[in-house]
């Protein structure tokens, strides 16, 4: 890709991101939404976050893939589960991943 094309990617990504983030608040703001909607919202975060974690830890592009990073994320998950801070979890995940790759 040329430098001009890279700048085009950056500009379009910024534009699209702003449109996506702004769409909901512009279209729906200041309005009372039905009560069941709040129930959906409470469940949206766990569903989206679990999907992000699994896709990033268990897949590469369009196929499932288990690697050193999967083990690292699992190790990070264990220390987080035991109450560790996100920084500690991230450091453990990176260290375990690096250690496995160094074997």
């Amino acid at each position, binding site marked *: 890709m040329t430098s001009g094309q890279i700048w085009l990617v*950056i500009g379009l*990504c910024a534009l699209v991101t702003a449109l996506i*983030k702004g769409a*909901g608040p512009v279209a729906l703001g200041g309005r009372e939404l039905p009560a069941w909607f709040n129930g959906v919202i409470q*469940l949206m975060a766990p569903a989206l976050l679990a999907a992000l974690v699994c896709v990033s830890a268990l897949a590469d592009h*369009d196929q499932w893939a288990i690697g050193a*990073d999967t083990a690292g994320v699992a190790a990070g998950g264990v220390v987080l589960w035991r109450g560790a801070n996100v920084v500690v979890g991230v450091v453990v*995940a990176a260290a375990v991943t690096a250690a496995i*790759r160094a074997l």
Partner: protein
Amino acid sequence: MTEATATPRERFRAGFRAAVPYAIAGFVLSMSFGVLATDAGFSTLAAIVMSAIVFAGSAQFTALSVVAAGGSVGAAVLGAALMNSRFLPMGVALAPSLPGPAWKRGAQGQAVVDSSWAMALQGDGTFDRWFLFGGTGVQYLTWFSGTVVGTFAGGVEVEKLGLDAVYPTFFLALLLAELRSGRAKSAAALGAVIALALVPVAPAGIPILVASLAALIGLRWRDADGDAAEGDPR
């Protein structure tokens, strides 16, 4: 801290403080973005400007992976857009909590990033917007500065240092904080299954967007202890 007991300034500071651990982890993440972007042919300035004006980790990594693999401009932008499509339902959820005319609400909606959005959500389904702004503010600072450091730290081997495990772990920390009810756990499990099932057949980003349907399906469930969520339509 609730809106009733704190001034906007206090809520902003509370959000800022609560997001510091995520901001530190984000610094490491954006540093690896800076390294990978310059490796993929981005100029130092381009990598830094991208973090400054896009400010969306998963979308930036998606676009970068397309560029690095020799893909087209359209594919890179589409990949980033699909990855960011989760901000659409998140923005819809946030909308009723934002005051002011449409353009102002749209501007405030730019403050949505995963961690601050999740932390600003209150028990009644509304969001504390000042908490959101504070949480996003501190993460913007470290996202930007991490990229600057990364672009000047050329030659760092991201995989060798295990830095590719930082991103999933970052979101895992957010997820664990969300798993308070049986319904939340079920929605998470279903979202994960939907996303993984779609990975081999759908373009990047779509599996995560479709996983948000788990929240709609989850409404029909009851918690293990028999309590339905407030406002359950049944």
